[in-house]
């Protein structure tokens, strides 16, 4: 195995120019995805996780969006300066993406088979017949029953969960090395969620595709990912293996996220209310010098407001950005 990671994001800054000024959605994110691994990118709405992922494929609307600095290294090659034409060769063939909303992500006027075949023909240069065969094979692989017959059906004849399977089949049809799954199960109900996550796991093992899973659901992280990156207000606050993050979270934000997962046994007592993180995320226009989480942090002290805490690493597979916290298990 080579030492270059599949994807390495170095100090990425992405912003949007608006009438009120520059919205800095991503403020120096660094992360790596190794071949064949599942990395979860976690955070609440507006923390910049989707913008980070869309920056990788350069799907953010430019203008007003702009990658202001940083590098996105795909197998060592920087994607940031590439033209759209060059990106189109990377999209689908090397990196594919699945969106949150399966109900509207398929074109209503083509059958699902035509849509998958279209992508395959464009990127793999297969003939019409071979492309349709490939579509059937992919539909079968993602668990669409009776794929040979269903390949001619239109999107409106599929349910939400089935459409998401079709989307995943389309994304994986050209055997990309990385699949970015942008909240792939958020729009689905819980039982279907579990099925889709199972299926993703299954596909990953069969095809060896790495997955960058974007989610706000710590439960999904625990179930599917090997490593996780926790983002808050455009920055990475903690990164580590899922085992370590759940057994000994270090950053107060990660701890808050884990504490706010509903538990069947009721946690510390039957009638206790669910823990929440007080306050709300900071304005994306503001640029205070200190830690972005400080206003909501139970451990915040004067130095937190003065400077951004650097990444500290208690072990090789665990990094976090906080002056005062230490990794420890959360009391049950």
């Amino acid at each position, binding site marked *: 195995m080579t030492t270059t990671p599949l994807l390495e994001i170095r100090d990425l800054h992405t912003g949007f120019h608006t009438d009120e000024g520059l919205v800095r959605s991503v403020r120096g994110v660094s992360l790596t995805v190794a071949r064949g691994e599942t990395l979860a990118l976690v955070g609440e709405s507006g923390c910049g996780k989707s913008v980070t992922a869309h920056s990788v494929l350069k799907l953010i609307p430019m203008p007003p969006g702009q990658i202001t600095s940083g590098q996105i290294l795909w197998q060592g090659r920087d994607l940031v300066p590439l033209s*759209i034409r060059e990106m189109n060769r990377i999209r689908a063939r090397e990196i594919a*993406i699945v969106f949150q909303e399966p109900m*509207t*992500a398929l*074109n209503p006027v083509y059958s699902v088979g035509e849509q998958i075949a279209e992508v395959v023909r464009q990127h793999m240069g297969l003939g019409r017949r071979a492309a349709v065969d490939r579509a059937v094979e992919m539909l079968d692989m993602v*668990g669409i029953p009776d794929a040979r017959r269903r390949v*001619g059906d239109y999107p409106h004849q599929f349910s939400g969960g089935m459409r998401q399977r079709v989307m995943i089949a389309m994304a994986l049809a050209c055997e990309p090395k990385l699949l970015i799954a942008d909240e792939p199960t958020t729009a689905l109900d819980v039982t279907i969620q579990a099925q889709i996550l*199972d*299926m993703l796991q*299954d596909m990953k093992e069969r095809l060896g595709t790495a997955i960058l899973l974007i989610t706000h659901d710590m439960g999904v992280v625990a179930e599917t990912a090997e490593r996780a990156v926790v983002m808050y207000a455009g920055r990475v606050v903690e990164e580590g293996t899922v085992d370590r993050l759940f057994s000994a979270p270090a950053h107060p934000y990660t701890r808050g996220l884990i504490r706010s997962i509903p538990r069947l046994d009721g946690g510390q007592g039957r009638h206790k209310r669910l823990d929440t993180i007080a306050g709300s995320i900071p304005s994306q226009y503001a640029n205070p010098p200190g830690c972005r989480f400080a206003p909501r942090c139970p451990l915040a002290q004067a130095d937190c407001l003065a400077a951004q805490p650097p990444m500290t690493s208690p072990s090789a597979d665990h990094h976090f950005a906080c002056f005062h916290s230490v990794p420890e298990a959360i009391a049950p």
Partner: protein
Amino acid sequence: MAGPSHQTTLTVADEPRAPTSWQRFRKHRMAVVGTVVLGLLVALVLLGPLIWNVPIDKIDFRARLAMPSAAHPLGTDDLGQDLLARLLYGGRVSLAVGFAAMLVAVVIGTLVGAVAGMSRGPLDAFLMWLTDLFLALPTLPLLLLIIYLFRDALKGLVGPEVGVFVLIIAVVGGLRWMPVARLVRAQFLTIREREFVEAARALGASRLRQVVLHILPNALGPVIVAGTISVAEAIIAESTLSFLGLGFPPDTPTWGRILFDAKDFLSIAPHWALFPGLAIFLTVLSINFIGDGLRDALDPRKVR
């Protein structure tokens, strides 16, 4: 959960196969009727003059304004010319003008609308300004001006008949693209933001591919309906021009021309106006039904 549960918990939806576009079109009964009627009309004007070979300009004063009879199945006009022969011959011109002008209007309109809808910013503003300008222009004076300016030049270039034909198609089609452009632009503005376009972009579809493969097919429904309406408008517009003496020469009996010639004799020879009117009516009606059927055929969600 044990094993690949996602494969076992799903049930096979036992619904019938989705019908193809052709099957959907066939289910639209009026569209099929329209196709047959229009097909008959086209066959008649193409083949009819070969079978009913009465000269269109044979003047017979003994049979002036004759009612339909065995010798003249549709009667005659005020010069005793056979109406059936004139209708069959003139229909070629009328239908050709109608379709060609519709094509011009739809192509220009789609092009302008698509470019405007895809390019937000100054180009969009300019194109819509242009569209509004054309909409605001009084059509008839403009038509007269254009024809006076260019008719002789074109006649000299490609011959009198082709010249007039090209000119009429250009002006009739060229002044009817605006509603299509606005429709297409509005469709593009909404469809370009739909997720499947974003998904196509994410899977490496170039801008042209997004437009041609994903946006345009979803925008076609209203365009087809607008197109069928403009066929009718073009046939009528041609007759207006002929009436003003600016279209085809008076000895070319287009449907509109015959209709206008007949209007002064409505009380004594109603058949003269009735038959060209019926021909225009049938053409327009069947085209509209075909348009309806096409729109449904192109929309897979439509199940009757």
